[in-house]
């Protein structure tokens, strides 16, 4: 059984470390905030200028002046702060934010990522993604292992315009947890019930399988 989007988020949440500041992208990454492990303190940064981002407001308490980078209405937690966009990206570029989790259309075995443009079809823009991937110490990509047509999103080289070069270190998909090092995807964990062969078949880039690969443990 491959993981649901919620379960991908749940697995990524296990990567959070105590006292980390974390930026979560739009989509699956946003869900990570629902699964913070017990006993650790993290703060979420939203690049439009918010630190200590809280849950969505209660109905009737939405504030047009209080949104996240996905333009969703949100709240701010005790200890949070609000600042301008230049300060926000100083936090990101200056590596004060320890972890970035974002989605991708393609990831390559050398750590390249593409997630902002499909030439001739979709041009929405990169938003803050290029700044985030160029500077974050830890970047985790959250995505499905294959696209809607069943083609692998883990490639030898990206075919779409790049968002960043050689920056992705970890990928969590509906099938596996993989680490990127020495120009290859190294298989770390399998989704429950998913075989190594399933993952091999769904991975177009170089896949290194070293010894027995454990199943993920989701609490």
């Amino acid at each position, binding site marked *: 059984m491959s993981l649901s989007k919620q379960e991908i988020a749940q697995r990524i949440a296990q990567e959070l470390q105590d006292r980390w500041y974390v930026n979560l992208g739009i989509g699956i990454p946003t869900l990570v905030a629902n699964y913070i492990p017990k006993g650790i303190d993290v703060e979420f940064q939203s*690049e439009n*200028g918010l630190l200590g981002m809280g849950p969505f407001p209660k109905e009737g308490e939405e504030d*047009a002046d209080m949104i996240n980078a996905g333009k969703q209405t949100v709240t701010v937690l005790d200890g949070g702060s609000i600042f301008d966009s230049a300060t926000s990206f100083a936090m990101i570029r200056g590596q004060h934010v320890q972890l970035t989790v974002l989605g991708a259309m393609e990831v390559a075995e050398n750590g390249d990522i593409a997630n902002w443009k499909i030439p001739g079809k979709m041009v929405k823009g*990169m938003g803050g993604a*290029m700044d985030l991937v160029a500077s974050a110490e830890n970047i985790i990509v959250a995505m499905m292992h294959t696209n809607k047509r069943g083609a692998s999103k883990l490639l030898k080289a990206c075919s779409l315009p790049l968002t960043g070069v050689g920056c992705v270190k970890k990928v969590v998909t509906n099938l596996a947890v993989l680490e990127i090092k020495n120009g290859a995807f190294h298989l770390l964990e399998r989704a429950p019930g998913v075989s190594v062969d399933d993952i091999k078949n769904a991975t177009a880039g170089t896949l290194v399988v070293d010894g027995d690969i454990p199943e993920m443990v989701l609490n």
Partner: protein
Amino acid sequence: MINKVVQNVEDALEGVQSGMTFMLGGFGLCGIPENSISQLVSLGVTNLTCISNNAGVDDFGLGLLLQKRQIKKMISSYVGENDEFERQMLSGELEVDLIPQGTLAERCRATGAGIPAFYTPAGYGTEVAKGKETREFNGKMYVLEHAFQPDFAFVKAWKGDTAGNLIFKGTARNFNPMMAMAGKITVAEVEELLPAGELDPNQIHTPGIFVQRIFEGNNYKKRIEQRTVTPKL
């Protein structure tokens, strides 16, 4: 005290002409200068270059200027959520320069701070860096990015005073403070305009020196793009 007050949006936009370059504050529809945008539509100025993180939605924000074909070029980081924008861009009617959001923010800041250019790692190795000078510092590659030259900056604040000091509310701050610094003429519209002395100097986000004209706006719609709530248990 140097008084920055103008009586209305008409006076605030005095001198605006076709072919000019504008900065417009806001992130999505949050903190956008609604009154100034309406007046730009009324004035009918065309061939505009607009620097703004987003391009509004089809029927609000900068989308209103796009509908009337008043914009020649957009400089933004993210332009989703706008069908008319996409249509004009794909048909070649509209020039679009998409740049990383942090680079956009810093280019605005640099403009107001007298810094002609700076190096940033964002976009290195991507098409954003094409034709730009690159340089290595401490083993990492960076791209040279330049300041802008806007004629006007239009910003929106929560409270302001007659000296042009501004206080923003919530995440409506976003790009507004840097753009306020950057305008040759900066027009600030505020929800509440107070006499000088009413705002605590310790709490000012944008000092009045950066603001040339201030007025109290009206009829703020403050539209929400994505209304998300926590379901009741």
